[in-house]
């Protein structure tokens, strides 16, 4: 058949139509997959909620952080937690549902479970536990005992119910494209280097900085 000449073969026409339908079907399906991924990514990023301005506050008890975050309306955030130790324990299901449904004090909220509650009520999606350099060796020895903890040479990665917890030092602070929440136990402030102070003061990298006058556990 010469180029440009029209065919009168019905089988050929059917095959061409079938091919076009097949290509169209695959293209539409792939477009659907790409759109689904794009929509989920965009919805995820848009559901992050930040504070209106840069806030530095002192809190009396560690778990007051939960009320500050809740009152500021933050959601889907990354927390940088500066302290020697990091404690996380579950809180009763009733407290979670109460905290999610109503404002006001949350029953049984303590130093050990306020981060768990914040993860469970959409506030936190990742936590960086920044350990003072002088305690890093001790933390490393402890975390190397667990087979499910991943070490990349600079930091450890573990999870709490799927929420990533990255244990690191100020030397390996990640560069984040979004402002972070900060919790600092001021008892260890002098153990962190100048990079941390610069990080705390940087209004583009942090929005709510909470300072707790804790005690040292040396």
């Amino acid at each position, binding site marked *: 058949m010469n180029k440009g000449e029209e065919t009168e073969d019905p089988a050929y026409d059917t*095959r061409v139509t*079938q*091919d076009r*339908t*097949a*290509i169209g*079907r*695959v293209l539409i*399906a*792939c477009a*659907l*997959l790409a759109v*689904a*991924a794009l929509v*989920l*990514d965009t*919805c*995820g*990023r848009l*559901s*992050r909620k930040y504070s209106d301005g840069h806030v530095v506050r002192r809190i009396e008890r560690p778990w007051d952080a939960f009320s500050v975050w809740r009152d500021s309306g933050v*959601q*889907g*955030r990354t927390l940088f937690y500066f302290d020697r130790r990091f404690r996380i324990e*579950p809180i009763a*299901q009733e407290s*979670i*549902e109460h905290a*999610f449904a109503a404002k006001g004090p949350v029953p049984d909220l303590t130093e050990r479970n306020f981060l768990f509650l914040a*993860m*469970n*009520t*959409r506030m936190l*999606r*990742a936590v960086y536990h920044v350990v003072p350099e002088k305690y890093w060796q001790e933390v490393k020895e402890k975390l190397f005992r667990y*087979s*499910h903890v*991943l070490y990349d040479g600079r930091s450890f*990665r573990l*999870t*709490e*119910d*799927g*929420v*990533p917890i990255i244990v690191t030092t100020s030397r390996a602070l990640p560069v984040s494209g979004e402002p972070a929440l900060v919790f600092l136990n001021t008892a260890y402030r002098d153990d962190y280097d100048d990079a941390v102070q610069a990080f705390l003061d940087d209004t583009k990298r942090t929005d709510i900085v909470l300072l707790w006058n804790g005690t040292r556990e040396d």
Partner: protein
Amino acid sequence: MERDTGRLNILLILGALFLAAFLVRFYNIGAVTVRAGDEGPHIPSASNYVERGYFGPDAWYHPPLKHFIHYLGLRVFGNNPYGWRMMNVVLGSATVVMTLLFLRENLPLKKAPYFSAGLLLLDPLHVFFSRSTVEEVPFAFFITAAAYFMFRGIRRRGEIWWLLCGVSWGCAFALKWYALGIAAMAVLLALAVEIKRRGWSGMSLPVTYGLVVPAVIYMSAYIPWFLNGHSIAEWFRMHQDALREMRNVNLERFGPTQMLFFSRIAGASRWFVQPVSAGFEMMRSGERAAYVFIMNNLPVWIWVLPSLCAVFVVSLKKRWTEGLFIVAAFSALYVPLLAVQRPIFLYSSLPLLPFAFSGLGYCLERYCRQWSVPLFIAFMLWSAFLYPLTTGIRIPLAVYGPIVERLTVINR
């Protein structure tokens, strides 16, 4: 007219089968009024995930569709034993019906589909878990449904069957990752058939509905998680974390009683060749007692592997694609469970049962001929005899004592 009567008859049979399976699974379902076993973490995780995108307290590394299923049950039936368990009652009963539909479509025999569906209807393990919240029950439903819709799509060439097939594969994958093996095998089979029939343009249906649509469904199951501020890059990273976490599951994570219980039902290689059981005594008063056992049904299950071997040989000799699919589907689900390093428990055998009993039903009719019906009835009577042991019904120890003695009672 004759065709309409035939269609009515099959609808009546399917309805009766669903009703029978439902009654067997529903009876006495509210007797245990506290959350038992996995119901403890499953129920709070349903609202935690659907309302707040949080995976805990259930094992977070499993795909999240089960939370939607549990949540639907809670919304429809309330936060009570019915709300916790009804979704599995319904989907477990639907699996029996779907098994019949799948085999009517694919077996060249008349009685075999009914034998297979009947064996599943009264199987003690399937009955037990259809009265709980474990995700293997909906998983078994979705893979059987996907296989049925796929063959329907290949034969009838209707796009709606392919769409249903894609949605079912997506749901199966959003319940358990080990759907990947059977789905990949099914897509390859569909590709081979469609390319042979239509040339390269035949690839579009299996690619669209075997790969792309399931991927969209799978990703959509993570919507509540994305709404916690996560990006697509974090989604891929979360999957790496989940795989690492899953590889590190071991029995030492459980408490002493749980450890004893799970150690008795661990080991996929034992399922079809050894008795496997673990259970609890619920009450004992004089000569009567009540138990709940998780157990295989060895007098029936022991015939599964020889039957599937027979189906495999027949399939090769006669170039019977559907027979090969049954064996391959069983193997695609079973072999990864045999190979994996972490402990695998008896309830993971649930998705195998529709395919296991397909082979058994086929061999009953094909090789046992005039003995097929009496043997089937004997299997059913034995399964019915075991029914009280999986449902907490009081039993006379004079009759059941010798069997109970051979089973593992954790709190004896």
